[in-house]
């Protein structure tokens, strides 16, 4: 088994190109059925949203005092999912981590579509979404300006910056690969890739500026990713609601975001490497590295849960203690315990090296993590509102079919977009794989000449 976890050194540059370009061949019927299925669910969700706009938020399960529930849970969940992409593409790039080369494009693509999905939810949550532009700070006749002391305004800036920078970062990395695909394709694909590659030819001048711009983009994206989920956490932590008002939220949310995001990368990559026949490029060695990050972040998240509970107990704040008592043992107590099972206990299996190379087991664990992290966000968002300061306001919440189907639609939207990208654009970075293999070969050559 140890041999399976070696970094692959054997593929030639041509093998890499063929392996990646083969994935982009015209897809079969099963693929189109999958795409049609995804976008049918999106159409149902869009129809229900239209009905919600027409009828008002009464069609949802939102009632006093639970006015933030599944929609905001989905927003936080999808922003969190996005984070691992930037971790793998930017932070690990700065650390020159070689295993990222085979998986970073998929993770980065996931980031873009996850942020695009997350961005829909504040709009969906608005009773009058056509007034979304009120968030934009420009002199206007309404005498209504955004309050820059509100975390919701910080959020609008942070998420829109994140979406823009992620899209630019993904696009930049794609240019050399798309140019390569252009040379090896015909017909409309050649035209499409020619436009997208902007006439790239890999001259020394182009690479010199590309390398610098890419390095600086990675340097900018690294603090950005930390800031975005910190700002999302302040949407809650800046409020005085028990269960939300906590100084631990920013690092706790960032760790949780990376945890859920890397698990989502595994959920997507494990079946994808089989269906797209890229098992030679994305090997168990790469998946094992992802599993180790999931394990590490699971331990950080578990520690955060323990610290949060300890602070509630140690503070002596009776209201906070009651909220947490309700969280553990109230009507929604089962959600908390499912969360503990999925986020703290099941990932401990990843301590076993045998499980970390068992693709089926890893895929199932990653699904549990996704479920657990969704429940975590729901527990924080809706659970805290349901058991707030005043017992006379304590209430419950049951999601309506509109909210459930829009949530399902968001997953379908994300998976549909990701599937389209995976089939028509290089889902594995040919350039970075070649760079990694060149580095390894030269290191091996240097080592053998030193030994001689």
């Amino acid at each position: 088994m140890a041999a399976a976890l070696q970094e692959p050194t054997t593929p030639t540059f041509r093998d890499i190109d063929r392996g990646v370009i083969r994935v982009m061949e015209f897809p079969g019927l099963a693929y189109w059925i999958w795409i049609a299925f995804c976008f049918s669910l999106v159409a149902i969700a869009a129809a229900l949203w239209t009905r919600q706009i027409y009828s008002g938020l009464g069609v949802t399960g939102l009632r006093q005092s639970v006015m933030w529930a599944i929609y905001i849970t989905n927003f936080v969940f999808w922003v969190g999912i996005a984070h691992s992409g930037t971790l793998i593409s930017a932070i690990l790039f700065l650390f020159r981590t070689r295993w990222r080369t085979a998986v970073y494009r998929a993770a980065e693509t996931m980031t873009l579509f996850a942020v695009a999905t997350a961005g829909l939810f504040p709009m969906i949550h608005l009773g009058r979404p056509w007034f979304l532009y009120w968030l934009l700070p420009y002199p206007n006749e309404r005498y209504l300006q955004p309050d820059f002391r509100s975390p919701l305004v910080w959020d609008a800036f942070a998420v829109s910056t994140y979406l823009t920078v992620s899209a630019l970062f993904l696009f930049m990395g794609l240019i050399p690969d798309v140019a390569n695909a252009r040379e090896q394709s015909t017909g409309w694909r050649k035209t499409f890739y020619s436009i997208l590659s902007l006439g790239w030819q890999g001259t020394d001048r182009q690479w010199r500026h590309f390398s610098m711009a890419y390095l600086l983009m990675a340097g900018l994206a690294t603090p950005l990713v930390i800031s975005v989920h910190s700002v999302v956490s302040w949407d809650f932590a800046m409020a005085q609601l028990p269960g939300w008002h906590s100084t631990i939220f920013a690092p706790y949310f960032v760790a949780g975001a990376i945890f859920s995001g890397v698990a989502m990368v595994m959920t997507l990559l494990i079946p994808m490497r089989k269906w797209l026949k890229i098992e030679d490029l994305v090997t168990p060695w790469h998946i094992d590295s992802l599993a180790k990050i999931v394990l590490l972040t699971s331990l950080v998240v578990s520690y955060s849960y323990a610290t949060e509970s300890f602070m509630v107990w140690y503070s002596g704040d009776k209201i906070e203690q009651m909220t947490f008592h309700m969280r553990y043992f109230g009507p929604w107590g089962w959600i908390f315990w499912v969360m503990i099972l999925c986020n703290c206990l099941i990932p401990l299996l990843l301590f076993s090296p045998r499980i970390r190379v068992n693709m089926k087991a890893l895929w199932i664990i990653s699904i549990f993590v996704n479920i657990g992290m969704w429940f975590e966000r729901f527990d924080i968002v809706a659970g805290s509102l349901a058991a707030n300061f005043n017992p006379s306001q304590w209430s419950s919440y049951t999601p309506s079919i509109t909210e459930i189907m829009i949530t399902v639609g968001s997953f379908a939207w994300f998976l549909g977009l990701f599937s389209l990208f995976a089939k028509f654009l290089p889902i594995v970075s040919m350039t970075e794989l070649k760079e990694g293999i060149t580095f390894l070969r030269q290191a091996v050559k240097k080592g053998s000449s030193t030994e001689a």
Partner: protein
Amino acid sequence: MRIGANSTMSGAMEIIGSFADDQLCARGISDLRAAQVTDFHVFSPIPSHHIEHAMGKPKSRVRLFVLIGGITGIMTALAITIGTSWEWNLVAGGKPIISWPPFIIICFELMILFGGLSAVTSFLVNAGLPAFNSSSGYNSRFGEDRFGVVVKCDEADGAGLEKIESILRNAGAEEVLREAA
């Protein structure tokens, strides 16, 4: 048009050396520069520090544009936040009208946004993209698995051509071709 070594055509021409390895290619570049040959460009399927060092070009100006972009972002954020607060005095929670700590968050986000936009824009401008015409000597294999050095020279300079070919071959070029420019 590809022509042989004994061509009698006169005019500008290119000698194209094709290498299997970036280190060999970098050696060829260094040898060319040592022989005072400067009019050449390089194609490569991957970014290579060996080639970049051998070329001896100054560091990319993209850095400067990103710095300017980042500072512009901070200034824009300060203008938006302070300007808005002065224009509409909205007292919330007894906080000062100009509340620095929350404004720093907007400054940070716009610094990243403007810095990122500057990085991509300056990369495109400096790299000459979008490019509508092919660079001379381009071959699709240079995007795949070969490193190419394209030297511009004058066909009339027979001795010079042979010298360049010899430098490229000695550096480890797999193939050296002459092509009309």
